[in-house]
């Protein structure tokens, strides 16, 4: 029988699956469609803001101590968070998609967003790294006519308002593609071609002033990204960085591909289009989870299960028109108020964040879901990871990827120890 079934193919589920298979377990991943990694900037945001405060925090790891004891970071502990980030860095480096950060200083980077805001993050793909606001070189942001959702003037103006030096330029669409309408993933695939990189470099060289660093939409190659990026940087002759775009996000997709490829090489099956609908348990041990199929449900038997279905955005919760909100696979209780009027504060940008985003599945210190807060685990062979967990507001805290990676790895460790014991 399968050792571990992971439900969910986002960053938490993939991290759990990799960690488990590399510890010698047999693993399968089922998910409903692809994970929200595809929507992300590809960075690993660990901890950017303390709820209620407006200043970016300096050292994310050290600041974990200031969080509520029920926060997922407190449950796994700062040492585990840090170790998990190192493990993650090894995975992506192996895949030829290295991530860097100011780790020695454990300082948050401040990276330009697609609207030119500065986002705190701990680890970025190397291609984004030189966009950090801590570097002093003036920025040239270059966009392309016809590329939706990337406006260099907007980015540059906003960066200037925050005290950085930045200006904008446009280049013609034809440098990106011969076809009329392409999304960023398709453009990135086209830029895997070295000839196209050379043409792009020729056009860019004419725009750059001495001493400038060059910011481009994050489309520089998909499968051959690192090679394409290095070729472009050397041909342009100046420091280069990518600015993430709106979804579909190329850096998020590259990250998904890197982790997916690692799993597939290890023989792990990732089955998408699987909507988990039911389960069965003998006593407090889960026997199987079933997914919806064309004629009959498909039962997935395993000795242990990791729930990594995501939060409101990822689809781990469902709310019915009548008001009931619940967890989709095991119908675990959520810490979200059932009364919808308590989900939101009146102000959209309330510095405390919105209460509904803090809700989720309550777990014990081993990340095992609880029937109610303070009670014993609901099932002896179930762990939870990522945005499904209660006690964090990943949007406000800028902690989504850090929680996903660290709890994903921690959940796999704990499931592994239980299986071994």
């Amino acid at each position, binding site marked *: 029988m399968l050792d571990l079934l992971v439900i969910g193919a986002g960053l938490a589920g993939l991290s759990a699956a990799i960690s488990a298979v590399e510890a010698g377990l047999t693993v399968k991943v089922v998910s409903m469609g*692809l994970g929200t990694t595809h929507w992300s900037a590809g960075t690993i945001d660990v901890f950017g803001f303390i709820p209620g405060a407006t200043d970016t925090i300096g050292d994310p790891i050290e600041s974990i101590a200031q969080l509520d004891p029920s926060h997922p970071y407190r449950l796994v502990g700062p040492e585990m968070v840090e170790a998990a980030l190192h493990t993650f860095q090894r995975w992506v480096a192996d895949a030829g998609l290295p991530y860097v950060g100011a780790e020695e200083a454990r300082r948050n980077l401040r990276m330009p967003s697609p609207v030119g805001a500065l986002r705190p993050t701990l680890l970025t793909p190397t291609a984004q790294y030189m966009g950090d606001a801590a570097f002093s070189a003036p920025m040239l942001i270059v966009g392309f006519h016809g590329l939706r959702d990337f406006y260099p003037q907007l980015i540059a103006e906003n960066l200037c308002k925050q005290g950085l030096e930045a200006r904008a330029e446009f280049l013609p669409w034809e440098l990106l593609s011969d076809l009329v309408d392409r999304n960023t993933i398709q453009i990135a695939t086209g830029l895997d071609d070295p000839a196209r990189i050379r043409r792009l470099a020729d056009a860019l060289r004419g725009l750059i002033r001495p001493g400038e660093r060059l910011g481009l939409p994050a489309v520089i190659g998909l499968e051959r990204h690192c090679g394409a990026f290095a070729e472009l940087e050397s041909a342009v002759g100046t420091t280069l960085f990518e600015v993430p775009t709106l*979804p579909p996000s190329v850096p998020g997709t590259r990250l998904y591909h890197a982790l997916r490829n690692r799993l597939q090489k290890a023989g792990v099956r990732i089955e998408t289009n699987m909507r988990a609908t039911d389960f069965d348990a003998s006593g407090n041990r889960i026997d199987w989870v079933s997914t919806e199929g064309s004629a009959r449900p498909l039962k997935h038997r395993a000795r242990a299960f990791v729930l990594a279905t995501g939060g409101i955005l990822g689809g781990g919760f469902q709310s019915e028109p009548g008001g009931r909100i619940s967890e989709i696979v095991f119908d675990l209780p959520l810490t979200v108020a059932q009364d919808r009027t308590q989900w939101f504060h009146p102000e959209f940008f309330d510095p405390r964040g919105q209460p509904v985003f803090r809700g989720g599945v309550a777990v014990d210190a081993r990340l095992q879901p609880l029937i109610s807060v303070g009670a014993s685990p609901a099932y002896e062979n179930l762990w939870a990871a990522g945005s499904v967990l209660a006690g964090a507001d990943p949007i406000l805290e800028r902690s989504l990827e850090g929680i996903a990676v660290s709890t994903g790895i921690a959940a796999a460790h704990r499931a592994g120890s239980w299986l071994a014991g």
Partner: protein
Amino acid sequence: MFPISWESVDHSLDECIKCNICTTYCPVSAVTDLFPGPKYVGPQAQRFREAGQPVSPDISVDYCSGCRVCNDVCPTGVKIAEINARARAQIVAQKGLPLRNRMLGRNDLVAGLGSIAPNLANLALHNGFSRFMAEKVVGIARGAPLPRWNPSGTFGAWMRRTRSRRLKSQEKVVFFHGCATMHYEPFVGKAAVAVLEHNGFEVIVPPQNCCGLPLLSNGEFDAARSYHRGNVARLAGFARAGFPIVGTSTSCTLTLKEEAPELLDMVDKGSQTLRAGVWDIFEFLRDLADRGRLRTDFQRLELRLPYHAPCQQRAHRVGKPAIDILSLVPGIQIDESHARCCGIAGTYGYKAEKYAIAMAVGEELFRFVREHSEGVQFTACDSETCRWQLEHGTAVPSRHPIEVLAAAYGLYDLESRKLT
């Protein structure tokens, strides 16, 4: 004309959060400007499709190949491929259909006609002049991999001829052969019968229709409805009596289970009973294996096998049972394809204006086969048109996994495609 109903997709439409994952994975949109992508043509254009609207806003929806990769990757469960299929049917209902699409939709008739004199039919169709004329006059791509009629006769004729030798057993399954097995590849059906009998099942082959998928793909919902009704009338009784209905053509089994009832809004009891009784053959065999009922007296098969689970197989949402079962055979090393689509998508790649797109889509799969071709004699794939496209794109012969399994039982020769 029966009005196209949107009932089952309307709610699904509201689930779309415009994240574009579908468009980034769409294999067709990746290679052509003619199809802007599932999000635009599906949930987005759907907002502009109104009942009674005099002119359809659609042109590009016809370039959707129906591969369903969009459904596969959608994180919120939007029925994108179904929206597109319905939109195409609405256009057909309004504007009618070219002769070519009527022909492609009625493969059962064309195939049946050829089977009267298979050698003559092959001679008449498979020559440069005929294919040139078929492209010029009808619009069927001259390079596309059209099948050949089997000169030794149909699957049905073989079943009748061997009736006295067929296994009789208390345990019975119904075999759904589909048009391709009936007329072009009877050996696939023979291999299936051999495997099922080897596992102690009596195989019943009752009269049956084409499943109607080619009609659904070409937007002829009315005709597809009468085909499906025919299958319900002929087969639902077996399902009700508890006989599993097993098929080797993964797109036919998907149509009987889901495509036909879903797209045609057939919620009648017969359709539901039939749906619940249908199995894709490896789904059925894996179920046997899970219950300890599959025989594992395999011979060693030294075979490196690149395997592609076709789109229609993945749409069953049963995992990849062919891999699960073939992995039990000693000696077989399976290389699993993660290519999105072979490109042909049923009848899509046969259309002159779409042939180049289909080949460009298939390149991902052809490249996978080329990269895994060392010491490879065959590829494997569960769908007939995909196998033909695979052979066309790679020049490596392709087999249904059931042929491989029959060979593993020592019942079948993979090279000559004959029972031993």
